């Protein structure tokens, strides 16, 4: 493989340099029906799960077919998406915030052939390439982070648990039977690149062992003051260590203060936390971002720890399914999972979801903790 130059001259990096041009402008990519009717849409309606139309003032309609997919996507797969878009949608498509792909057509007769084409495509291993669904009072795609495919701090994988969970929740991806829409999100460590902290159900990777200390290299690889400053609980202090007969500068960790956030590791590669038994999954529930009926809510920790059970995380997926079934059975129409839990009371939530309430679930982290304890005589037996 011979090196092929793009025209860039490393000796003169500023020569003909183009920078600060930003993204391509959105309206280059609007399908004609969108360009024409932007800002004049009147209403929308679902034809079936995953398929809906919008009507504009002009009387024009745009029909959207939404399909799920892994956000980890090869160019081979993207080229297939392009091929479908050209075959059915004049070469246009879009992606949603939750990693779904939407194919838009401007008349109803184009919908059925499009769906049939999408549903007929399967990977060699047997899974659907483009399952139609993910709308309305059902479960849409899981947003997630990188996990073991590309990140240095994860406490679990991302793509694997997502695939395993969506396989278990697949029926609800293709249905509108839930009381309201239900958003599942995954972040592979508590840095939460995926901001899962306001999801109906959050799958969160968590470490449980304090950092290992690579004394031999620590001072060479890290700015020790930065590692110390990175610790939110002030558990790290500078320390001189006897290493192979020599005094080296390093750090000491007050282990019972460690909250396993991994911030020190982010600043200092000589403090790794990852551990086969230590790492696993926290399940959180009851968050939302919409302002509909009640204000947005944070998700609450409802299961403190489930071990990483690669490749299919059976206990994680079973726990999620258990919570969703209890919610589906008991909640009122339009009620989000968190609104349901608050209405029946969290004591009832644990009972109905058949989840054990352990001491780990009582907040003991600083000020907000007090506001989560019960300051009333009102409770349910």
């Amino acid at each position, binding site marked *: 493989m011979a090196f092929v130059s793009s025209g860039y001259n490393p000796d003169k990096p500023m020569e003909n340099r183009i920078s600060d041009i930003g993204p391509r402008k959105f309206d280059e990519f609007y399908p004609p029906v969108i360009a024409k009717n932007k800002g004049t849409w009147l209403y929308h309606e679902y034809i079936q799960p995953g398929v809906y139309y919008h009507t504009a003032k002009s009387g024009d309609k745009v029909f959207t077919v939404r399909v799920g997919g892994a956000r980890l996507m090869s160019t081979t797969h993207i080229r297939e998406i*392009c091929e479908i878009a050209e075959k059915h949608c004049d070469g246009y498509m879009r992606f949603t915030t939750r990693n779904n792909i939407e194919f838009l057509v401007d008349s109803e007769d184009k919908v059925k052939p499009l769906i049939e084409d999408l549903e007929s495509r399967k990977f060699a291993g047997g899974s659907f390439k483009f399952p139609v669904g993910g709308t309305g009072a059902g479960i849409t795609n899981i947003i997630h982070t990188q996990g073991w495919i590309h990140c240095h701090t994860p406490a679990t994988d991302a793509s694997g648990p997502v*695939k395993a969970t969506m396989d278990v929740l697949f029926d609800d991806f293709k249905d509108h039977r839930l009381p309201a829409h239900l958003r599942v999100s995954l972040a592979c460590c508590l840095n939460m690149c995926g901001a899962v902290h306001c999801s109906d159900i959050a799958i969160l990777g968590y470490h449980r062992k304090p950092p290992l200390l690579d004394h031999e290299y620590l001072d060479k690889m890290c700015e020790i003051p930065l590692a110390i400053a990175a610790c939110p609980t002030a558990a790290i202090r500078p320390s001189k260590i006897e290493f192979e007969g020599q005094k080296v500068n390093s750090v000491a960790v007050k282990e019972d203060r460690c909250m396993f956030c991994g911030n020190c590791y982010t600043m200092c590669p000589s403090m790794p936390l990852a551990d086969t038994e230590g790492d696993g999954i926290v399940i959180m529930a009851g968050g939302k971002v919409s302002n509909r009926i009640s204000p947005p809510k944070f998700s609450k920790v409802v299961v403190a720890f489930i071990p990483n059970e690669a490749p299919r995380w059976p206990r994680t997926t079973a726990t999620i399914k258990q919570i969703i079934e209890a919610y589906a059975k008991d909640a009122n129409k339009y009620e989000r999972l968190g609104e349901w839990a608050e209405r029946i009371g969290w004591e009832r939530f644990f009972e109905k979801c058949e989840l054990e309430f352990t001491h780990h679930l009582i907040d003991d982290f600083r000020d907000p903790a007090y506001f989560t304890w019960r300051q009333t005589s009102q409770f349910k037996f």
Partner: protein
Amino acid sequence: MAKHETPLLDQLESGPWPSFVSDLKQQAEVRAKNEANVEFQIPQDVVEDLIGVLELSYKHGRTHWKHGGIVGVFGYGGGVIGRYCDQPEQFPGVAHFHTMRVNQPSGKFYTAEYLRQLCDLWDFRGSGVTNMHGSTGDIIFLGTTTPQLEEIFYEMTHTYNQDLGGSGSNLRTPSDCIGSARCEYACYDTHALCYHLTQEYQDELHRPAFPYKFKFKFDGCPNCCVASIARADMSYIGTWRDDIPVDQEAVQAYIGGEIPPNGGAHSGRDWGPFDIQKEVIDLCPTDCMWMEDNKLMIDNKECNRCMHCINVMPRALRIGEDRGLSILVGAKAPILDGAQMGSMLVPFVKAEEPYDEIKEIIEGIWDWWMEEGKNRERLGELMKRQGFQKLLEATGLKPDPRMVSEPRSNPYIFWKEEEVEGGWTRDINEFRKHHQR
């Protein structure tokens, strides 16, 4: 014959949901065959080694990626994240496997022609593995080597008129919902504002000068489909301040069962006939709706625009006509000191080009945060440390009860000297004339 055995990952090929393992395998095969005669600039078997190292992580229950080194393109401090494998001998194809963030277009609309161009570039100079899209919103190019970074950037800017996104302590790539392009709820043009501010602040996006990351997200209405209120340092949420127009005929059509409630979003179960009292009026958080002479009445002054009634009856009720947006600030995920939701700073501002009023608020906040923020301190944390009053000073905004959910319940007010009649300078001897020691 695959380069590495993957008995664990193979188990993720079955089941209905699209399998990323199957996709990676097909990509490995396409590269091995190379029917398009691509002059690959990074190892041809890169995807096989990627699958191999992932399988090893499945076996160990631990990642095999190291910290990023300092890699990037000349003149930028973001957009590239260095990544190295910790088992380079075993998986040489992914020894260097850097990420590039490519700034997505607003609304994530694409043409096949454009996406294919990106695919061509990425097959040629990278792994051909992507994220569509990353959590922040960028197109993510996953895996290339250091010498290719400048080449990709050069080609991207010269041939495709496309720039990188943000990473590190700078303005992260702004992102938005679908907005008025295809949504009747959008109270402003999210694409236009997102694009305008992205272009306006290119310097802040590419050259880290902030204490930490800073995110803009644009939601067209209070339904918040891009979750701006939970994760953006500045969250722009569409709203309106006049009345909800009511089409009484359509209301009757909902009551009569001619139109399914909520656009048919509840079609998977028999919830019984639509009951406007139970499903709309009783669920209104401000009790501002009632039926009178078969008409749906709204006391609009009391409405807090939660969107529920409009979501349930989109053909009968619409967002108002006097539209704009609210700005909420300081949202972040739990690291370090717990999660924060965005707090209301600007209850209403019009979203009209050139958006000067909005930019003035942004720049006031940045000046304050860059002056006072500690290393790795998000805006929300600075707000907590120094107080909401400092934010008001920084932005020149007047206090408004809409900024709080309730007034303070302690009286520990940090009065300023100029607020107190006569100031703080007093004469102890004068005091003692009337008060013995």
